[in-house]
């Protein structure tokens, strides 16, 4: 009984970790520039397809494809940010939503055209497959790997934002963009770099997630609700909020499906309603 509860907790944390990596970029862009970027999942999908193609066409090992997924998605992010997104920063939210949802449709159509509509397979290296017995509980090796990677990313992000000059600029810009610009911070450049970082993390998450979330052209739509939930519950613009929200969602989703499968997939939505009533600005939201 306790064994299965720990197993559920472990799976939930792993699932939450994945949601965190993919969504954190969205949270930062929404908090920083108030830009509602519904196309965020498309960057995750790009990362996923980068991994799959490198593995199947070029024979690159799985672990080596992950940094490439990050770089490719970040590069795509910076190109799109400089050419398209930058034009819409001052636009009303509806325009931003229409624009980014249009991008999603284009991404889906293009992916279907080039790679076909079906699920993409991923071959994990042998040491990441199967289960490891820890105190008599079977833990998925890949999920342990996921948790470790996300822990490392979280620490790195934290250090980046708290200990570096760039981090200080990001925090200042999130708090008050106008005042920061007045103090000589190039808010646009900070935002461009942050956007690329967020897209890159989404790409990395997409690559990491193929084994758990699957990968097909409808990926950006399938999970958009989850990404937005993380941002809404955590509060836009905070790393801590995103992390806590992703963990809550991951654990409750898995636990709900395990213990009460009849209503399992409904639980996270109920949770969202409840949390949004209690914390309208998100758990760690800055705006009231």
């Amino acid at each position, binding site marked *: 009984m306790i064994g299965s509860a720990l197993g559920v907790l472990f*799976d939930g944390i792993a699932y939450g970790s994945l949601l965190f990596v993919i969504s954190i970029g969205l949270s930062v862009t929404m908090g920083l520039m108030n830009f509602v970027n519904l196309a965020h999942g498309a960057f995750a999908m790009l990362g996923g397809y980068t991994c799959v193609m490198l593995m199947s066409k070029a024979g690159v090992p799985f672990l080596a494809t992950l940094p490439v997924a990050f770089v490719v998605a970040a590069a795509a992010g910076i190109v799109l940010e400089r050419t398209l997104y930058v034009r819409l920063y001052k636009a009303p939210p509806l325009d931003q939503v229409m624009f980014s949802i249009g991008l999603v449709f284009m991404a889906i159509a293009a992916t279907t055209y080039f790679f076909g509509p079906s699920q993409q397979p991923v071959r994990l290296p042998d040491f990441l497959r199967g289960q490891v017995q820890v105190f008599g509980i079977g833990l998925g090796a890949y999920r342990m790997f996921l948790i470790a990677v996300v822990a490392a990313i979280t620490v790195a992000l934290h250090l980046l934002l708290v200990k570096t000059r760039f981090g200080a600029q990001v925090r200042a810009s999130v708090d008050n963009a106008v005042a920061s610009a007045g103090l000589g911070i190039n808010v646009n450049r900070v935002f461009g770099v942050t956007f690329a970082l967020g897209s890159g993390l989404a790409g990395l998450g997409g690559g990491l997630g193929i084994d758990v979330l699957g990968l097909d052209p409808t990926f950006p739509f399938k999970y958009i609700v989850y990404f937005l939930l993380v941002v809404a519950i955590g509060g836009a613009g905070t790393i801590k909020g995103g992390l806590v929200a992703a963990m809550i969602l991951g654990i409750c989703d898995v636990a709900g499906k*395990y213990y009460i499968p009849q209503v399992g997939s409904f639980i996270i939505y109920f949770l969202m309603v409840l949390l949004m009533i209690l914390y309208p600005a998100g758990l760690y939201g800055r705006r009231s």
Partner: protein
Amino acid sequence: MNPSFLPSRRKVLQGLGAAAAATAFPRYAYAADPLKIGLILPMTGPFASTGRQITAACKLYLQTHGDSVAGRKVELIIKDDTGLAPETTKRIAQEMVVQDRITVLAGFGLTPLAFAAAPVATEAKVPMIVMAAGTEVIPQRSPFIVRTGFTLPQNTAPVALWAAQNNIKRVFSLVTDYAPGHDSEKTFVNRFKAAGGTIIEAVRTPLRNPDYAPFLQRAKDSKADALFVFVPSGEGLAVMKQFEERGLKQTGMKMIGPGDVVDDDILVSIGAPAVGVITSMHYSAAHDSPENKAYVAAMTKANPGMRPNFHSVGGWDGMHLIYEAVKKQPNGNGQQLVEAMKGMKWTSPRGPMMIDPATRDVIQNVYLRETRMVNGEPWNIEFAKFENVKPSGDL
């Protein structure tokens, strides 16, 4: 509200008049009239593989059997309904009837989509060939529906019997929460219980489901002898992956179900984890017959990298049925074509099949298969067959 969005009374009257004209005057077909087949399929979205398989098969049929039959030129009109929007399917069906003046409606990837189009077929008196959707009640929705695919009770009943006879006592059932899933679950639970088995739990997963892990963990902890699974074809990959990762196979749990979970379209992608799964289904790309060997070779040649799956033969046989009906009734109207189809028998790549004159549904052999590695690739190898299984699944 902006008044320009409201249709004017005149427009409405015009539309009504056009609709009335379209149905009131009988259309006379002359020998030179083209035979227009309106294919409505999901070509994008999560069920796009169904659309691609069926279109590929229909086009292949045209290539190999000529693009004219009984002196009539055959035209395929293919439209995408995206798989998730019944109202779109209905609208496309209406457009095809009124504007394109099609002779036959065909395709229909999912049950709700077939339901949506059924009234259009009845109204326009046009034969509607259901090639993919598998819920049993579909042909009852219109006297013009004829099915060339399969029904889920048909594909589920044999494996329920096999399980009961092969020392499987306790089963955990996992199906997707939509009409075909309910059909499959009901058939399995009833037949397996009737044969003396026990269902530990019957769980339904949402149609759009990100993560099967918790459901499969629950199945594992239930310590069942076997896990019964029905999911729409593309989802098999995700289920098999968790089945493997959680080590359900190592605990001795067998995976059984209708063949959708080991769909030939994705079986190569699933790879080794699929080995040992026992399923029952009307078609396997590995079916051992000259007709099927020729079919698989031609499909693979025309579509590199694609292995034909069970939906594709639904399309192939749908075309065959239309061709044969038109040969019997070269200028027949919808009613006459449906009459010509009733009771028709032929040998398909899947084996012998016929259209039941009473239900307009398909009666066919259903095979038990085990997934095995052959020359480094997984195939569903048939090891037993049930002859002439009825749409209700009665063996």
